[in-house]
Every structure is written in structure tokens, then in C-alpha cells.
């Protein structure tokens, strides 16, 4: 990128590359040149573990070169659109259209228009069918690839499931290809690879009735890729150390993948099964190496539910011992309000007294039972009491609204929880200094969760409940914030849609939609216009699905069976909980289908 461009944009450090840990190779020496594309700003993308992991994995092969590219902010976009600059890679400033493969990561549905925008800025046709042989191959992976259909026409190939399992094999295959078509035919034989061109959606009287296979050897459904053991797999000991402040500016190491909690709203908890832990020794080695090589001030032990690691206490204690003299902070995402969490928390936080975040998700025990959020009323208040006694006074609590079977009582439950905490704080400390931050989001019934058949609660209903809470939580100790309904609705449509939605996405993009996940940029009226143009009935898209109808995402097989999801769906309606499956297997299917009967190192947990 030109100096004159960098002098004109905000936060030019986003676009300069050259960070410690970034890798530059001579393009003459590499056989496959790839760009890892994150369809959001640098500071968001650099906080994402998958980027560091795949970057380091691909570049560990001499023949392959992986660079990065992020969505440029609007000021740079304008300069690119005026043809004064090109959208190019960070490491070598190669125009994006000149690399062999562009790999988009799909972390959230509201970044879809940014994918189109990046292709468009690079001068690459949006739809696979319009791209010629010389143009880059466009691939994509990440959690949203579990329903690839809404963006299927734009992407040549999806990697579903654990990317590190598949990517190197794909690049090797690409290296020896005869043509793009030849490559795709061979690639679809790799487990976890979905090539949209080999399938079609079938409709009867306008209703989606399932997929047809257009190329016989292509598998149906497409099984997700699965790394059996993280322990034996590549894990980077060096990340790219950003110059600018990024969202999570710290060393981070994955301590396990998957989750056994079984929260019924959580897509990640279903699609990343089974749990695969890394040993204490490996976690410690990687955390310390990352700190040494990066010089960070903070280290995070990440996973969906970090306290569930079988050796978490030992890991935290030993890591604490090794870093305490170096003024390095530790952080554990996803803390829970129970006594074990508090023990670990004391070690992690040391003297630091900032705010603590917890996610009870619902305000009443009944509601928490419906969603299978394993938090007990008593635990919440006894842990809070302990925290208050130790001097904590800032808490952040996350809840959801629009949950299945939610009534006004459940909403009042959020208010009551807040008020009881305030009273408890007064009682415990004799002071009035509690700062309680309450925030609510919408339940979005995501594919491959037990709630996938449920309707999204209508916006006006949720808005009333938000309104109620804003009034109820007016006291100076509280602050209440909530997610916007319109963008949550859009997220639901993009998450649950069929290929038909791709036309809507393209139209919305042409009308100016980008950065839909950013409140300042999100423009609902554009999307309404696009839905109208394609005759998409929003209410139907957001509505209930019947248990026996075909669903667009069933082209993918996540390993967790439909039968299990249905059982959980009915149990939810019965307000019946399903305990953590480390104690007792509930037969979700992942072990019988994928892992040869093994889950957590136990043969046949069934």
C-alpha cells in the first residue's frame, strides 16, 4: 500500500503488516499462495485464534505461503473505490486477485456482505460460476459453514469442521491440480469438504424439500472434519503480535475444544463435539512459549467453558507460579458463579479489581432449565456474596430474551436477580457501591441446536420486554443495555436460510450494506428492500419449522444426530434438564459416528 494512502486513513497500523511473528516468503519459492481473509476490521480478526493457528500451520510448509487480508474500513474503501489503491495482502502487498486461494473465515453471519465487498473491491466476480480459471479459488470455513447455503453460490468450496485437519491436504491437492474443476472433483472426497456446485436444492410448490447430488461421487450429507486429538496436532508456539490495540490483545492458547454442558441454545456446544483436551504439560508449554516469544502482558486460556478442563486447577496454579513475577495477567473466559470458579478466579485475578462477567442467560430457574443452563439460584447468590466480601463491586451479567416458553415472569426474574444482588451487596458490605451491568441479547435459534425448529420470538414482544427492563433497572446501581432486534432478526435469517437467501445478500450488498454487525453501519431498510425484491417472507423465515420438514443445513452432518436434537427439544418443553455428559453419556451420536465409540478417552460411553 502506498505511503500517501496510509497518511490519509484512520489507524494506518491496521494496514502495514510487519508485526513480530508475521511471515514473509519469496513468492518465487512457493507453490501455493493463499490469503487468509477475515471479513471484518484488523482489530477484530487479529483476536481470533483460528487465524493464528491456520497461518502458522500453512506457513510451516515450505511450498505454501499464507498471508492475511482484513476488511478495510470505510475511509480506505473509498480510496480503493476511487482506484487510487488496491485491496491487497498485508505481508507482501499482493493485489488480492493475484493470489491462488482466498480463504474466508465465517465467524458470524453479519459479516457476509463484507465477504462480497472484499471480492468486489478486489475485482473478483461474486459468484463462483462467473469466475474464470485464472481467478483465485474462493474457499471458506468456520462455524457458519455449518449452514453454508445462504452464501453457497459465492464460495467454490467450504471446509466444515476442524480446518487444521483439512487445509494442508487441500493445498497439496491444489498444487497438483490439472484444472479448477479437476481439483474440486478430487477435493470433495476429503472429509469435511463441501463443494456447492455438486449439489442443488430441490423445491416442491415453493417449499424446500432437500438436496440433490449433481456429481455422483460427492458425498451426501457432508460429514464435518474432526481432529481426533488436539494434543498430537500442530499448535503454534508463536502468534502474530499486533502493534495496534486489538479486541483481545494477549497471548491465548486453546485448552480444549468442544463442550459437555449441553446448553440448548448454543451452536458451538453442539458442532464442536466431542471434547478434546490438551494436556496440562502442553498447555503450559504453549502458554509460556507464546508469552516469551510475544512479550504480551496477558495470557488467556480459551475454550467454550474453560473451568471444565479436567486439570484446570493445576494449570492455573502452575501458570500463576511461573508468571507472577513478570507482571503478567491471566484470564479465563466463561467463568461461572459457583464456588469452584471463585477459587480459580482468586488465582487468576490477583490484585486486579476490574469488573467480572457472568452469563446466567435467564432470570428464573424454570427458564434456565428449559435452556439447560446449568446454574443454580443458590450458587448465584452465595458466590456473589463471597465476591462482595472480597471487595468486588462491578459485575456484568448477560441474559437472553425471547427464549422458548418465556413469559413475563421470566423477564421479571432478571429484574429480581438484579435487585436481590443489590440488596445482598448492601447487606454484605453496608455500602451502596455496587455497579451492576445487565445486558440482554436475542435468542437466535441456530442450526444444529435443539432449538433449530423454534420460531424467533417476534421483535415487538421482545422489545416490550426490553422496555420493561429499561424502566425496572433505572436505579443508579444498574445499567441496562440490549441488542437491537433488527440485526438479530437478520442474523437469524442468514443463519437459517437456504440458497435463496444468497440473492438477498447480493442485493443488499449492491444497495450499500456492509459491516452489518456494527451498529453504526447497519441499515435495516436496505435489507427490507432486498427481501422484498426477492419475495422473501420474513415472517416465514423467522418462523417455526416442523420436525419432519427438510432443513437447508442438513446437507451437513455435524455428528450430533437429529434424533438427539429432537429429544433435547422435547425435554426443553418439559422443562427437564440434561446434566453435563461427562458423568453420563446422553447419546448425542458423536461417539458412534465419528470417534469410534470413544469420548473423553472412555470406550463406549453409551
Amino acid at each position, binding site marked *: 500500500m502506498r505511503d500517501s494512502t496510509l497518511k490519509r486513513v484512520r489507524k494506518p*497500523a491496521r494496514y502495514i*503488516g510487519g508485526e513480530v511473528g508475521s511471515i514473509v516468503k519469496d513468492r518465487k519459492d512457493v507453490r501455493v499462495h493463499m490469503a487468509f481473509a477475515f471479513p471484518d476490521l484488523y482489530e477484530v480478526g487479529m483476536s481470533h485464534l483460528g487465524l493464528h493457528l491456520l497461518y502458522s500451520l500453512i506457513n510451516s510448509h515450505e511450498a505454501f505461503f499464507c498471508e492475511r487480508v482484513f476488511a478495510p474500513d470505510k475511509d480506505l474503501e473509498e480510496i480503493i473505490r476511487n482506484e487510487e489503491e488496491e485491496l491487497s495482502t498485508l505481508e507482501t502487498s499482493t493485489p488480492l486477485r493475484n493470489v491462488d486461494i482466498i480463504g474466508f473465515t465465517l465467524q458470524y453471519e453479519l459479516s457476509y456482505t463484507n465477504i462480497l465487498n472484499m471480492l468486489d473491491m478486489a475485482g473478483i466476480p461474486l459468484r463462483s460460476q462467473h469466475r474464470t480459471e485464472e481467478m483465485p479459488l474462493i474457499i471458506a470455513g468456520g462455524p457458519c459453514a455449518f449452514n453454508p447455503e445462504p452464501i453457497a453460490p459465492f464460495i467454490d468450496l467450504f471446509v466444515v469442521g476442524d480446518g487444521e485437519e483439512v487445509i494442508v491436504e487441500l493445498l497439496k491437492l491444489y498444487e497438483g491440480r490439472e484444472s479448477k474443476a479437476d481439483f474440486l472433483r478430487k477435493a470433495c472426497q476429503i472429509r469435511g469438504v463441501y463443494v456447492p456446485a455438486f449439489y442443488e436444492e430441490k423445491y416442491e410448490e415453493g417449499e424446500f424439500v432437500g438436496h440433490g447430488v449433481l456429481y455422483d461421487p460427492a458425498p451426501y450429507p457432508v460429514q464435518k472434519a474432526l481432529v481426533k486429538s488436539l494434543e498430537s496436532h500442530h499448535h503454534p508456539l508463536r502468534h502474530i503480535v499486533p502493534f495496534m490495540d486489538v479486541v483481545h490483545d494477549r497471548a491465548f492458547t486453546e485448552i480444549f475444544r468442544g463442550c459437555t454442558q449441553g446448553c440448548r441454545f448454543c451452536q458451538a456446544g453442539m458442532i464442536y463435539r466431542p471434547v478434546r483436551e490438551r494436556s496440562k504439560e502442553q498447555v503450559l508449554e504453549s502458554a509460556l512459549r507464546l508469552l516469551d516469544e510475544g512479550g504480551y502482558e496477558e495470557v488467556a486460556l480459551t475454550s467454550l467453558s474453560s473451568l471444565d478442563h479436567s486439570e484446570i486447577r493445576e494449570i492455573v496454579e502452575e501458570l500463576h507460579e511461573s508468571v507472577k513475577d513478570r*507482571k503478567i495477567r491471566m484470564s479465563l473466559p466463561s467463568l461461572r458463579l459457583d464456588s469452584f470458579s471463585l477459587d480459580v478466579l482468586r488465582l487468576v485475578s490477583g490484585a486486579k479489581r476490574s469488573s467480572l462477567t457472568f452469563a446466567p442467560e435467564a432470570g428464573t430457574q424454570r427458564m434456565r432449565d428449559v435452556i439447560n443452563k446449568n446454574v443454580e439460584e443458590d450458587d448465584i447468590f452465595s458466590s456473589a456474596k463471597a465476591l462482595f466480601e472480597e471487595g468486588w463491586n462491578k459485575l456484568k451479567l448477560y441474559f437472553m430474551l425471547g427464549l422458548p416458553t418465556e413469559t413475563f415472569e421470566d423477564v421479571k426474574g432478571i429484574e429480581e436477580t438484579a435487585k436481590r444482588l443489590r440488596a445482598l451487596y448492601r447487606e454484605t458490605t453496608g455500602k451502596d457501591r455496587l455497579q451492576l451491568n445487565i445486558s440482554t441479547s436475542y435468542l437466535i435459534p441456530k442450526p444444529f441446536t435443539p432449538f433449530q425448529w423454534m420460531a424467533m420470538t417476534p421483535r415487538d414482544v421482545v422489545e416490550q420486554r426490553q422496555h420493561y427492563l429499561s424502566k425496572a433497572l433505572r436505579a443508579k446501581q444498574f445499567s441496562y443495555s440490549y441488542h437491537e432486534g433488527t440485526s438479530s432478526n437478520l442474523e437469524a435469517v442468514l443463519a437459517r436460510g437456504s440458497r435463496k437467501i444468497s440473492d438477498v445478500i447480493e442485493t443488499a450488498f449492491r444497495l450499500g450494506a456492509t459491516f452489518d454487525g456494527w451498529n453504526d453501519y447497519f441499515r435495516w431498510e436496505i435489507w427490507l428492500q432486498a427481501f422484498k425484491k426477492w419475495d422473501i417472507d420474513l415472517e416465514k423465515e423467522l418462523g417455526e419449522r416442523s420436525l419432519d420438514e427438510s432443513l437447508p443445513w442438513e446437507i451437513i452432518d455435524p455428528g450430533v444426530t437429529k434424533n438427539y436434537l429432537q429429544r433435547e427439544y422435547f425435554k426443553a418443553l418439559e422443562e427437564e434438564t440434561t446434566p453435563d455428559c461427562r458423568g453420563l453419556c446422553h447419546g448425542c451420536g458423536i461417539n458412534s459416528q465419528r470417534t469410534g465409540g470413544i469420548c473423553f478417552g472412555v470406550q463406549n460411553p453409551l
Partner: protein
Amino acid sequence: MVCRIRFRKDGRLKFLSHLELLKAWDRAFRREEVPLVFSGGFSPRPLMTFALPSAVGICDLAGYMDVQIEDGFDISRLLRIKGLPDGLEVLDVKEVDEVKVSLMSLVHSVDYVIEGDMSALERLKSEQPLPFVRINKRGRRHERDARDYLLRMEWGEHALRVQLLAGSEQSIRVNELLEAVTGDREAHVRFQVTRWEVYDKEGRSLWEH
């Protein structure tokens, strides 16, 4: 002990903001296991102070910083820090016994080298005033003459060296000078600017302190 460092920041890294530069040094020192002295409080920070943060987009050959390090550390190690990002370099280090006056309060003027199309800067050669507008904290507009801040000029074929006031009482940014001369707010985009040296009131390099 206090260690005074003279450093260079150029290439792509000239686009780092001051805070980003601070973090880059902090992390480089930690990677090198330099025993930094930290501030107290809930979020301890290493004790680093700079003479004069250079603006985003300007190469700096005269970066000065004081950093506190545990006694007994061999400061020559700082000259050999491995793994500094391309564009950062330690040029010189020395121990200062006691910091009586902060680096920042010593600053009086700065030498810049401006490269680019010199014909655009012809007006500097005349005697005409070079007005520019500055808006103060209360939003009041003040007209100033850039010439009042200009101590010295030295013309080359493709480059100009200027010495500008930069102290706490009177200072001008190089972008303001370029704007005053060309009448164009965006003029700085077309020039390459390098900070060459920082001087005290007597015209001595800060390094001599």
C-alpha cells in the same frame, strides 16, 4: 536505574501512533527479558517516558526515551535486542544517574528533513507571512504566522531541512507548516518527512544531556 535510549523509527513503523510505539517497546523489552521497573497500582505499567512523540507518518531518527530498569542490568544488551520489528532500532544507550529535568521539558526545537517536490514550497523563500489557523481547546480560532516558528532553513535540490520550535511554550507541527506554505490541508500526504534531531534551548542535541 534510568536508561536513556536513542532510537530510530521508520519504514512502515512510521505509521505507529505513540501508544502503539510504547507497546512495541514494552513487548520488545519483555521478549528480551529486560528487568523493567513497573508502576504500582492495579495495572502495573513499565516506567517509560519519551522526549517528544513523533506524529503518525513521520520517520524518526531522533527518538529519545528514558526507561527504568532494575539495577545491575547490562544496558549494552539493549543495543542487541533480538526480534525488534523491522523499522525500530536502538541507536545508542546510556545510563543517566538522576533525572533532574524530564526529557520532555528539555525540548526546544526540532530539525526536520522534508523530501518531495520543492517547487511546491517556493513561498518559503519569500518574505511573505505564512498564516495558518489553529483552534484551541475552547474551540477559538487563532491565526498564526508559521514564520514565527521557523528558526533555520537549508535548501537542497529535492529536500529541505527546517528547524522548528517544538517546546512546551511555542511549537508548530510540520503538517501545519506544510499547510501554511501550500494552502493545502492534505499537503503532507505528498511529502516524506524525517525528524532528524531534537534540540534544547542552547541548540544542543538532547543526547548531550
